[in-house]
């Protein structure tokens, strides 16, 4: 398996959204999940499409057309799933993010890290 390219922040968000949506990952749900992950920033549907295309070209995700559904006016969904290369790239990104978090916590102190940890805990419910 080749080395995956390094991911941009938006690519990480889209891959995380696909990972967490599992079988239900398609344009609308991915966009909703990415918006949730990126808040308070607004995310356009077009940006999600462009990123999905790019990730597919890189071989990080695969797509297929599902059966048409009536709530979509009888049109099919393009569903996405992570490929092995995508999972690896996401793991590497998560490890890097953890290292960044630990370095910042070391400089700004444990109190700061605790406070942010609590805030995130509340956000996650």
């Amino acid at each position, binding site marked *: 398996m080749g080395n995956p390219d390094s991911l941009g922040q938006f690519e990480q968000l889209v891959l995380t959204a696909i990972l967490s949506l599992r079988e239900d990952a*398609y*344009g*609308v749900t991915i*966009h909703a999940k990415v918006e949730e992950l990126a808040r308070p920033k607004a995310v*356009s*549907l*077009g*940006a999600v*499409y*462009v990123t999905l*295309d*790019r990730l*597919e*070209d*890189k*071989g990080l995700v*695969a797509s297929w*057309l599902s059966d*048409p*559904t009536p*709530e*979509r*006016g009888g*049109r*099919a*969904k*393009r569903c996405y799933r992570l490929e092995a290369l995508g999972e690896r790239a996401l793991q590497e990104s998560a490890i890097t993010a953890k290292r960044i978090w630990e370095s910042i916590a070391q400089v700004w102190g444990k109190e700061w890290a605790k406070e942010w940890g609590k805030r995130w805990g509340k956000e996650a419910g």
Partner: protein
Amino acid sequence: MRAAPPRWVEMLVGITIPPACRESVLGDLHERYAGLPQYLLDALCAVPLVIVSRIRRTTDPQVRLLEAFVLCLSFLTAARYKDANFLTEPWGLMRLAIPAAMALVGLMLEDAYARPGRRSPVNAIVAPVFGLGIACLSQLVLSGGWPALVLPQWILLAGSGMGFLLVATLRMLFPPLADRPQGANGPAFWLQQSGKPLNIPPVAIRVLKVMGVMAVAALLVVFADDLPIVGPRLLVLAGALLLAHEANRRV
């Protein structure tokens, strides 16, 4: 009953979306529908990016560069052959670049809006006709507002004819792909194509290849016109004939 966008609006939006992603994008927009203004805003934000992404996916930079080169060369040669002074006139080169650039835009759009999986033997001919049609249309538009930038008719016709032959030959040799294969970020994208070859009658390929080689020969002969002796021109002609013979033999 679930609210749905008006059919005519969906149809209009659908026309602007490339066929390869029309079904899924229209379905997503339909699912998110919460009123006409929201639908139109969604479409306005999403569709341009979808088109750009499709153009990126269907563009092979190396082949596109070759197409740009042969288009520029065609119009340059037509101008050089018909009126050598044209190139030194103010805005002369700019006037030649406009139809070449517009034809290239036409080729890009034709590839982006091609139906994936539907490959026809006439594809290699339709795309250059569409591209050069856009080039001629741009000249018509320019003649209304900026007549100083319009090419003389005979240069436009000769350049378009030669451009058609060369681009059609190029697209026969390196057929465009409707879908970029996964992980195809490396060089020589056209080398990685898979699937069934174009179902073109061998005679048509033979004729087009020979015509393409003859067009290149014509270009070379025109540029060799300045040489004081006839030897090099004869050499070029002999080379072109040899190439034509080779192209004919290798089909």
